[in-house]
Every structure is written in structure tokens, then in C-alpha cells.
């Protein structure tokens, strides 16, 4: 999984599982929290399509944290008021960057979370797919 894809995976994963995994990592992995955890606002920008004009659409609450582990930085931003999830995500991000021995388990957990998110999207899509109109020519 690419590093940029981890952020959404942190948001999709079960929080207890994510925090539990971070606790396991921290048993032999020292980190310093360098940012947050902070609950704050992210302004979501949208590009108006006819002029390609960006504008400020709405704010969303986000939780953000960053940790340092030696030369490695770990970062997480997740949607919603969830500082524990953000710190756990940052720890796991740093652990993956440092190739911690638990990395394969972390990767599996994150991949499973993304797969569950995709499965939920397919379930939702399947509820609306039958509403696609098929016109019948009656002339």
C-alpha cells in the first residue's frame, strides 16, 4: 500500500483494532509525538467545473497527529473527532516507514480495512444499480 493511501485506511479501520495494533508496536518502538493530536477543521475545496474555479465549499472536522521515531516521521489525518485514531495512525505510519517487525500485520490490517470499505461501496452501489433507466422506443 502506498504511503498516501494509508490515511484513508486509518479512517476506515476499526478504531479498537487500530489502537490495539499501535499499542503492540509501542512495546518496542519509541516515538515522540511532535504534532497534536489535534481536533480541528479542514476546509474542503471544490473546483467549479465550467471555469475550473476553486472555492471553499465546507469545513469538516478532522483529527491530526504526527510522531517522530528516529529519522522517521509518522503522520495521520482522519475525518471526525477521533484523536486516538489519529495518534495510532501516526504511530503505525512511522512503524511502517521504519520497517518495524509488525509491518506485515499492519499492512494486512490496513488492506483489510480498505477492502471492507470497497465492499461497503459495492453494497451501496448494488442498491442503486437497478435504478438505471432503460428507455424503450415506442414509436
Amino acid at each position: 500500500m502506498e504511503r498516501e493511501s494509508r490515511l484513508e485506511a486509518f479512517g476506515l479501520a476499526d478504531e479498537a483494532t487500530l489502537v490495539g495494533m499501535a499499542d503492540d508496536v509501542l512495546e518496542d518502538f519509541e516515538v515522540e509525538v511532535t504534532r497534536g493530536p489535534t481536533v480541528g477543521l479542514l476546509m474542503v475545496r471544490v473546483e467549479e467545473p465550467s471555469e475550473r474555479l476553486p472555492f471553499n465549499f465546507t469545513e469538516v472536522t478532522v483529527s491530526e497527529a504526527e510522531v517522530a521515531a528516529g529519522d522517521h516521521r509518522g503522520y495521520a489525518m482522519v475525518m471526525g473527532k477521533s484523536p486516538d485514531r489519529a495518534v495510532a495512525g501516526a504511530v503505525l505510519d512511522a512503524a511502517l516507514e521504519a520497517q518495524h517487525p509488525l509491518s506485515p500485520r499492519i499492512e494486512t490490517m490496513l488492506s483489510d480495512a480498505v477492502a471492507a470499505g470497497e465492499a461497503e461501496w459495492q453494497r451501496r452501489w448494488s442498491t442503486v444499480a437497478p435504478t438505471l433507466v432503460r428507455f424503450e422506443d415506442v414509436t
Partner: protein
Amino acid sequence: MGYSSVRGGLEAIGHAEQLIAGAVTDTDHEVGVEQVPGHLELLLDQVMGEGGLYDPQLGALAVKQAEGDPLEAGFLLRAYRTTLPRLGYSVPSSGRDTRVLRRISSAFRDIPGGQLLGKTRDYTQRLIDFGLGQKRAPSEGSNGTGEVNGAHATQPAEPLAPLPDEDEFPLVIDVLRAEGYMAPEPSEPVEDEPFDVTREPLRFPTRRSARLQVLARGETGAMLSLAYAGMRGYGGAHGYIGELRQGDLPVVISHPVTGKHARIGRVPVTESYQVVGGQATKADERPDYTMGYGIVTGRNERKAISMSIIDGSLKKEHKTGASIEDEEYVLHHIDAVEAMGFVEHLKLPHYVDFQASLQRTNSVRKLVQAARSNG
């Protein structure tokens, strides 16, 4: 009847506050906050949109606390957001990247990808369903429709459908562009830093980025009323819905370590692309059609369509003088918090003001009586 300053009422205010606090908790069937997204989804979407803050958990709390009053709940969200730091701005997302769950065009029948009705009441009769008043087993659905955004979606009767391709639902306005009816898409986005009305007060004339932000936070009813008036003749705003789409818009940030784009989640949105004709003249070769744009959080088609109608009217080069084309009139009167605050402040004591008014009236009366007695 003179005025003397008094104090008091604190005890009465305290009791009144208790009545409000108990209104949502002193009941045998208290509504759980977790029930709001599943059962009052449209109300929640309206509140988050007008509050300018997407957070379903906070929005649900606000709805419950406000006893279902959308304006009051939006006010609560606006107040809460002022306590949080701004952590940054997202990378601009495009409706092209939306995961589509509903998408129709009333301008074209055959559109690439087809008309996807999704979750809609548009083709149903508006009859009260008395069956909803009956107690049902937990697994028994009300009418068999699937949910789109709700957490309590019914399982589809059919097997899982194959997912659509990423480019399955291109924008309908691209059809008009391809035919030369609408200006081609700019190759690069506009680079101006967007105006942020949460940081700077509005100044007129505004930039379009400011207008779109205010409209996106506007009150549904106020915007509907303006759009309705514009369509009926006060502004000639009757265009066509080139496309109306609902789905999940990606929220993307610039990763602070790698600098690359990274998606952190998605926000459900409704977009309206209002096609406005009659732009071409003999004097120039402008494209025949332009576009008004509307976007709101969640499922609020009424507001999205209204926004696109108002945006299209404000963009007009040749104005008719109608209110819907006057940005100062529109932008100053569609904000729910400002409007309700100003109108409802009349409930607060105005004893001194009214005393002054009575004194003026009495003075005028005396002058009139004196003038009459003097013949």
C-alpha cells in the same frame, strides 16, 4: 409611563432553560443521537450544509439538542466550529471524481452512462403511509427501498452489482462543450486563492469564489424562494438541469511528509449543473450556453438546484434588475444564522426603544391637537 431601570427575571430564565434542556430528555422514548443519521438523514444533511460543517456525529447532536429545528441546529454547529483551529485546506476536488449514486439529466434523455435514478421520491405519489404508524418487527422494512447514505440500508435483493468504471458517468456539460454550445473546459484551474468568508467579511462586488461559498452555506428555504421567484418571472432564471448528481466527493490533502495528494475520506454531496441559454448575440461569438453551479453536502436537491439557479443569475452579463441578480441582496439575505438572529432579536426586550417611540407619538399627537385647536 416613564422608564426606570430594573433587574430580575434570572430565576424565570433558569426555569425556562430547564424546560428546553428537558424537552429532548424527559420522555419515555428519547431519540438516540445514533438514530438521527439513519432516520432523519435529510434534516441532518440540511443542518450540516447550512452550518457549513460536515460532521454527522456533531450534526446529529445539534439536531437532537435543537428539537429538530434546522436553523437552531445549524447555529449550534456554527458556534461550535469557532472553538476549533483551522488545520488547513484540502486540494480542490472535482465533481468528476464523485462516486455516483444518483445522476439524472432533464435536458438530455440519452446521456453517457445513462439516467441513474438512485434514491428519489420524484416519481412517487405523496400519500401518507399509515403503515409506518404500525409497530413492525425490527427486520421488517417499511417500503423495500434501499438506502444510499444511511447506516440502516436494506440488503439488496439482487446479487452484488459489478462496480461502475471510474469514467462511467462523465459530466453532461461535456456533451454541450463537444458540440460547441458551451465554452471549452479551461486546460488549467484558476489559480487565484479562493475567498474565504469564514476569515474575511464580504465586500461588494464580490468574487465568484466568495459567492459560491456563501451559497453553499445558505438557508434552503431562502434560496428556494429566490430561485422560485427568479423562475416565475422576477429574473428570467428558468434554465435546464443539465445534470443533477449525488454521490461521495473525495477529500484530498497534500501529504505533509511526501507532498503527494492523499485522500482522507469522502463527503456525500449533491451537485446541480444548471444550463442557462440565451447568451449569444449578433454582436459577439460567445457560446450559446453558460452554466450555474450548485453543490451542497448530503442529499439536498432542492438547495443544490436553487443554488445553481441563483449562481447562474448572478453570473449574467445582461441583468434585468431583479433581486436574484443582485449579489448584495442575495448574499446578505440567505444566511440562516444572520437572518434568524436579526428577525428573532425582536423577541428580546425593546422597552426603551418602544418608550422612545411612544414619546414621539405622544409629542406628534399633542402638536396635531394644538394645530387643530388653533383652527
